[in-house]
Structures are given as structure tokens and as C-alpha cells.
């Protein structure tokens, strides 16, 4: 089992966490001007990087979303920050 660091609760078992999305996506606005392509880009397309990445994760136990920096090949975690205050 891998241990993931929740910025609020500290190190916890990986099974307590759910992957949410890649960090850095901004919802296109205003809704009425957003094309189908732009909306689909926002909803479903991904960088899907091989290597270092920033992702939004949910710690189910405390209910907080946070940003985790991780490597998708080695699974090494290099950062874990609260999502509040932007930066996601």
C-alpha cells in the first residue's frame, strides 16, 4: 500500500483517496459563449503526462480536495497542498 499525504490529516493509506482531475484546468465562461469543442476540451481531454504531474485529489475521510504533485511512472509524491486560495 502507498501512503498519500493529505495536507489536512497527514499521511494516510492510499485507499482513503480518490483521484479527481488534472490540476490547472479553468472552466470556460460565460457558458453561453462556450463552443461544444471548448466544453468537451474542458470536460474530457487531458495532458495525461508520463512522468511529473499535478493533480487534484479528494481525501474521502475528511472531504477535502487538494493538489498533489506526483510522478506517474515511479508513483513518488513530491508535494501536497490545499486547493483553497486558487492554484488548482
Amino acid at each position, binding site marked *: 500500500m502507498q501512503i498519500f499525504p493529505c495536507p489536512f490529516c497527514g499521511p494516510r493509506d492510499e485507499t482513503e483517496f480518490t483521484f479527481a482531475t488534472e490540476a490547472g484546468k479553468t472552466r470556460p465562461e460565460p457558458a453561453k459563449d462556450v463552443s461544444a469543442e471548448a466544453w468537451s476540451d474542458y470536460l474530457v481531454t*487531458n495532458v495525461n503526462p508520463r512522468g511529473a504531474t499535478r493533480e487534484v485529489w479528494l481525501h474521502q475521510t475528511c472531504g477535502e480536495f487538494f493538489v498533489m504533485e506526483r510522478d506517474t511512472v515511479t508513483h513518488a509524491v513530491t508535494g501536497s497542498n490545499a486547493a483553497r486560495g486558487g492554484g488548482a
Partner: protein
Amino acid sequence: MTKRYSAFGLFREGLRGHSGWQPAWRTPTPKARYDVIIVGGGGQGLATAYYLAKNHGITNVAVIEKGWLGGGNTGRNTTTIRSNYFYPESVALYDFALKLYEGLSRELNYNIMLSQRGVVTVSHSDAEMEIAARIVNAMQINGTDAELLSREGVIEKAPLLNQSPEARYPIFGGVWQGRAGVARHDAVAWGYARAADAAGVDIIQNCEVAGFIVENGRCVGVETSQGAIRADHTALCVAGHSGVLAAKAGFQLPIRSYSLQAMVSEPVKPCLDTVVLYLGTGTYLFQSDKGEIVVGGGIDRVPSYAQRGNPPVQQAILSGMLEMFPSFGQLKMLRQWAGVVDVVPDSSPIIGPSPLAGLLLNCGWGTGGFKSIPAGGWLTAHLIAKGEHHDISRPFDLERFATGRLIDEAAGSGIAH
């Protein structure tokens, strides 16, 4: 010239100490240009090359593989073949593949060891039985074989299943597809490779595609570890690595890469002659021709390019197996492995043009692209040769994510990849 395999040839080689076999395909040096380049020497890529030659007479083709043939998911999967999907578009695709599989050993002169032992998907409540009936109806309307099984019907197919009234996932009945089954995965890759090579296709192994040559907004070839290779058309058949290659071509895809793992036990006496999947546990298993119990389940919970699989999911798969077959608690597990699969939001593949002209996509097969290798290859070859979709591949175009015409098999047939 490729020698045809035959019973007589096998007998003759038996007498001369097997000294007369020849390599099943050549090891050519890449040419500077081809009509078509296929990136990825898994089943999908090799089948595409074979059908380009066979159906369209296009033989100036290179398959470029960074490792060895079938070393990706095609050699790592659990070999289940079926077409028990919900939407007509999906059944048209997967049943076409199944029909091609049914004639493939003969066609390729290569024994792919197809065994149509059937698949039973087991339901555990009255509500799940209604879903099972809905799927059976959909399959029958779509023209494939399906039968609704009672509890007794399921137990007859797999008598070792947990029949206890205390079972956490009791058997209520299930969906049966009798034409479904398994085939030898390496043999599918090798059979297509040998037949494509015999038709003149260059199969280039140990050659990694590092980037694309783009001129006037069109892909006109690839940069590889063995130099630049040019072609009028390039097709991406790289499964879990689609995101990596798409980034090099300058676009993003609706794909995320995950590890998917499987395990096999020591070989034991014949005790299970069908493929069983539990809706409740998500675990599925069957007995291999060697006697091993082959076990698989859902994808890992963490996006990953690590080809190893993570322990919590391994635990879930094995506890699922014990729930289904308590007697398998005595089995020694021999091996565990994983592949990197490309997961799409609607659990259906992507076949069609990419955002870069001259570059075609065959990807997004997720956890289910082995069963579809003959159809995926056939349809990708059609796209390249004709410059337009075949009726069966049209619904699987990338544009569906913008138009909203998703083929959501996770919701339809409960297939989670």
C-alpha cells in the same frame, strides 16, 4: 517465401529434429519512405497492416514497435473474447471481431487457439436480474447470441461457484453468451505478424517513435530511434501510450492511462470450463488450457504508467475470487503483472482522424481491446485506404466527445473500462 504450416510439415520436422523451421517474419532495415506507417506492434497495429495488404493491396507498409511484438497489452491481457455489449454500435463492432476471430486460425494459417467456451456474467439480486434481462434483450435485438440464465443455469455452467445461502453475493442468475471465449494472445499477434510480413509489410522492432514530421500542417512521417521515416499516412496504435504520442503530435486526447493487472495460479486439474464474471465483485476468471486459473478485475485507482499494478486492487481481485470460488483458497498464485491501458470517458474506443491531418487514431480500447483486434485492424485499414469511415467505425470517431453522441458502455452494459 513463408512456408505454410501443416500437419505434414509438423510430422516431417518431428523426424528431422525440428531443424527446418524458419523465422516467422523478417527483421528488415527501415526504408526512407512507405505508403503507410503504423506506430505500435500490438495486435491492433499488426492487424491493421495485415488488412491493408489483404483487403486493399497496400503492402508498402511499416509497423514500428519500440519493444517487441505483442510486448504491450496484447501479450499481457487475459484473452477474453465476447460481444455482450449494450449499444448497437458496440455489438456491430465487437461481433464483427468475433466473427473474424471464428475464421482466423484458418485464414492466417496460424493456430490462435480460439476456444468458444462461453462467458457467464452473474447477477446477485432481483434488480440485477432485470438489468441482465435488459442486456440479453439488447444483444438479441442487435443480432448476437445471448441467453438469460436462472440460478440453476449458472450453477450448471460453473458448479464450483459459491452456492451458500450466506454468500455475500448470492447467485440469482446471469447473462450467457455461448460464442464468447478465449484465444491465445501471443498467437494472435504472431499470426497477424507472419501473415503481414508474408504480404510484404516491414515489421521493425526495437524502434521507438520519438516525434512526428509535420509539413504544411500535415503529418508526413515519424522521427524514430533509427532515423526519420516518411509516409503519406501514419496510424497510432499505441494503446496506453496514446497520450504520450498525442503530446508529441501537438494535441490532447480524452484519455487517461491506468495500470490494469491480472494474475495466474499454479496449474490444477480441469475444474472450470467457462469464463465467469461477478457483477458484485468485478472479478472474472477462467481456467487456461495449461490448467492455471487466470484472474482479472478492475483498473487501478491511480492514473499510472507504471507497468506493475497496485496492491489494494490486487487484494480486491483476490478477495473477489475467494467469494466466488471458496475452494480456490487452496490455490498458489504464481504470477501477477500489469499493462498500461487507455481509458476513455464512455468506455468505447476511438477510431478515426486525429486533430493532425495525415495521422489516424486507433486507441481508447481500455481494458477490452484484445477481443476487437480483427475488427479494429480491419476498420483502421479501411480508413487509411478509403480516406473515410466504414459504417461500423463512424460512431467511434473522436468528434463524438464534442457532439455528445457518446457510446457509454459503462452505463449500458456495466463494462467499466
